[in-house]
């Protein structure tokens, strides 16, 4: 393929990936990796290298808006990030000794199973108000944000221990498989900690950038971040992410959860297909 066509294809696909990623709190890898490997015949290592940069681009590209609108919960994000980064380092260290195929199959299955509780609360706009107690109270894991119609939504986090455990697993998966595992982060905050969906996806958006930055140096030094592939991806994602943020701010939580459920199903299928070796 000639350079200009390669650039344009990737650039346009990445705009879509950035928009979707910034709304549901995941990096763009779900869209970018299969386009690179299946349609453009790029080596999986280069695809993952581009995906790591795309995660950071999604996170930072969306962050400016989410910080301004105060939807991201920095305290909850920072608390959970201790688990994710620790998990990521452990994962990267032991990755060489574990089978990627088995891991992909296990993780894909976990994602499919988690569709059940997610679909059960698919129509829930706001979680029922939780009692702030224990560790959540000590760390003041609560917050509020303002909907576009001016209503102030207050919420308390529950089960911080379960949430942190979920993040440790999410970090392990990122370190082991080189994927962002934003899906697992959103699931932990939505199902275990019972945060409003917007808060879960935007807080995940914050966290995936930090986790990816932690491992980006390794990929960079190895030479996995190929500028020819990664430049159009990064540019497209940055533009797409800023489009996605405008949607999220105005959207209903139920709409975001529906999109997330579809993305979750798609990423589970993608992982299982990868594990089966297609």
């Amino acid at each position, binding site marked *: 393929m000639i350079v200009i066509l390669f650039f344009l294809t990737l650039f346009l696909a990445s705009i879509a990936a950035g928009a979707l990623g910034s709304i549901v709190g995941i990096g763009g890898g779900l869209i970018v990796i299969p386009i690179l490997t299946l349609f453009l015949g790029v080596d999986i290592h280069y695809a993952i290298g581009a995906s790591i940069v795309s995660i950071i681009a999604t996170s930072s590209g969306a962050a400016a808006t989410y910080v301004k609108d105060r939807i991201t919960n920095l305290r909850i994000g920072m608390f959970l990030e201790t688990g994710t980064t620790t998990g990521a380092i452990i994962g990267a260290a032991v990755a060489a000794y574990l089978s990627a195929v088995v891991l992909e199959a296990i993780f894909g299955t976990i994602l499919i199973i988690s569709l059940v509780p997610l679909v059960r609360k698919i129509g829930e706009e706001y979680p029922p108000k939780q009692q702030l107690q224990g560790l959540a109270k000590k760390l003041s894991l609560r917050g509020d944000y303002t909907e576009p119609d001016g209503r102030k939504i207050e919420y308390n986090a529950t089960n911080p221990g379960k949430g942190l455990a979920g993040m440790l697993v999410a970090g392990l998966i990122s370190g082991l498989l080189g994927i962002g595992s934003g899906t697992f982060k959103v699931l932990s905050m939505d199902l275990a900690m019972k945060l409003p969906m917007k808060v879960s996806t935007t807080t995940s958006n914050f966290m995936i950038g930090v986790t990816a930055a932690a491992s980006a140096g*390794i990929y960079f030094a190895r030479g*996995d971040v*190929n500028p020819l592939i990664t430049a159009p991806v990064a*540019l497209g994602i940055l533009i797409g992410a800023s489009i996605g943020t405008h949607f999220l701010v105005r959207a209903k939580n139920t709409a975001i959860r529906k999109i997330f459920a579809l993305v979750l199903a798609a990423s589970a299928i993608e992982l299982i297909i990868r594990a089966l070796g297609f």
Partner: protein
Amino acid sequence: MNRILGIVLRVGVLLSGGVIAIGTTLFVADHSLDDTSSYLQYNPGFIPHGNFPVSLASIASGLISLDPFSIIALGFLVLLATPIARVALSLFLFAAEKNRMFVYLTATVLAILLFSMLATPLIPLFNG
């Protein structure tokens, strides 16, 4: 402080996007009709795999000669710095709030982050 955080993020994103766009434009101007296969070869036996700059020194020397790939890599580095700057600024944010618990938590995250960025490429175990 939240405003400063917003400004830093916005400047970081615009700067990295701009630098990557300049590098990309320079590359496309010269190579728009090249075949991509010569750039996409992956050599599992060699580290680094590609023929593009991967160290700070090679990026710096490439920048002097306006090498497009070095300019793009500089943009990646700016992008990479934004989440780190965000955590570092959060540290000041929590310190200003006198929220001691979160100063510790954030310092922990920052320490893990800097460890994995600076130390892990040097540890053979992590180079899989």
